[in-house]
């Protein structure tokens, strides 16, 4: 299977003297859903930000479909096929739902209508709410706008930072099942999650990070059954079973 995202020995952080990631590696292949797990503060968000160019990579490699990502300005990442849904502040609250989608299609304007209808097909609520400012929506609806916005550019890889955070279990289930659908439509997905069980259930493989380093990886089923996974979580005060 062809490699979509390749991350090798990445060192990155918010200040040059204090790296948060100390040599993290991972690979995501075409058509996969891969989940990054790990206790709070492990560096999961930092890793995804480093890939997206929001946090600077000081050493190591990162490439998308063979194209080097290291040192690329954030605004050029979309062109390589990368889409990123941040953990917080992931919609433009003052812009309408439809304007959020238009911004998502900033680099893909000619396909706007087709992409928008595709997003409305996935998240039917959004069509009804299209004129409302995104800030007025509920948490679940906002998350749909955020994912929809990211899909507008027709990405090859969709990265999501805790897409189920703050959602009811039922809503989280809806988001996860839509991610499965998005994946079967040909978009490779990389998720960061606290909700390990739900995320692994829809994933092909997983990586566990702790203290800015790789701890464990494997296919989703084996991670779900691995007692060490629970240990890593319990050790850091998080729970796997919820």
């Amino acid at each position, binding site marked *: 299977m062809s490699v979509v995202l390749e991350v090798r020995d990445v060192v990155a952080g918010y200040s040059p003297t204090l790296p948060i990631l100390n040599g993290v590696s991972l690979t995501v292949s075409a058509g996969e859903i891969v989940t990054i797990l790990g206790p709070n503060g492990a560096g999961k968000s930092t890793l995804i930000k480093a890939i*997206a160019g*929001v946090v600077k990579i000081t050493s190591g490699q990162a490439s998308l479909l063979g194209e080097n990502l290291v040192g690329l*300005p*954030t*605004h*050029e*990442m*979309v*062109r390589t096929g990368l889409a*990123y849904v*941040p953990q917080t*502040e*992931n*919609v*433009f*609250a*003052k*812009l309408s739902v439809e*304007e959020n989608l*238009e*911004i*998502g299609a*900033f*680099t893909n*304007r000619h396909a706007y209508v087709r992409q928008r209808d595709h997003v409305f097909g996935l998240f039917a609520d959004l069509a009804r709410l299209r004129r409302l400012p995104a800030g007025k929506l509920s948490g679940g609806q906002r998350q749909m706008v955020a994912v929809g*916005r990211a899909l507008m*550019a027709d990405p090859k890889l969709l990265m999501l930072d805790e897409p189920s955070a703050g959602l009811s279990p039922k809503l989280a289930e809806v988001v996860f099942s839509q991610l499965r659908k998005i994946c079967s439509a040909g978009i490779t997905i990389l998720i960061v999650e606290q909700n390990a069980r739900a995320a692994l259930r829809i994933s092909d493989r997983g990586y566990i990070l702790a203290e800015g380093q790789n701890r464990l990886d494997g296919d989703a089923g084996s991670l779900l059954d691995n007692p060490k996974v629970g240990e890593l979580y319990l050790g850091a005060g998080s729970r796997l079973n919820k």
Partner: protein
Amino acid sequence: MMQFVVDGLINASLIALGAIGLSMTYNILRFANFAQGEILATGAYFALAVVVLIGAGAGALGPLAFGWPLLVAMVFAIVATSLVVLVVDWLLFRPLRSKNASRITLIMAAFGLSLIGRNVITLLVGGDPQYFSFYIPKAITVFGVKATPDEIAMFGITALAVFVLHLFLTRTTLGKSMRATAENPTLAQINGIDTRSVIRWTWIIGASLAAIAGTLQGHTIQLRPEMGFDLLLPMFAALIVGGGTSMYGVVAGALLIGLSEALAVGVGLSAYRLSIAFMVMLLVLLVRPQGLFGEKA
């Protein structure tokens, strides 16, 4: 009687045109641009240069004292002021941004720039007031108040500029990307928006509106090196009372401040016009701390 309304609207036009630029730099570059007044004055003197070259009286337009030379002058002022402002950003603010300078550093740089700007203008054109022409305005009476056709045109030009900016911000991709950048620059970049280009357009739009204001003020009042600096406090007041984030708030704020100033003059308190405008601003903020169009914190 209602004369103060006319004077207030004229005053509000100048404040609004200047303050919109102020709000754009505030929301996108995230600092208070104390040099906004000098940008306005720069525009006025660029317009003067053209008027002097062509002659203000040439080619009158209908009942207006100004003719096409003033419109040519305004267009030239818009282009030239935008270029000056882009060069200044490149030389001064861009290096500060790339070093992640704090807000205070940026504000102090703008403050210094304001001082230098006024001195350079005085050095080049002298400190005495100048005029585009010495026309005697013939007032006409509309709805019982007296106004010159030029004052009405000035209000019309301002309204048109605000309307065009509204269409730009709500209908064009560039306008929407500017609103997106104002709200969340990182998320804008994630969507492929080059915020450096947004910053350039922020300066261009702010400078253009200021150049329009400078030209109009030069035509209806006079040109002085301090003409923009004297408008700076009312502009900030309009921005703050409007809520700081929306263009419509700025326009509403400018109307409030402009009308209060004119009312103060109308009741014979012209020495206190600015104090009275500030008192109105404080009263509004006591009732609505977030400003007229601001969101609750």
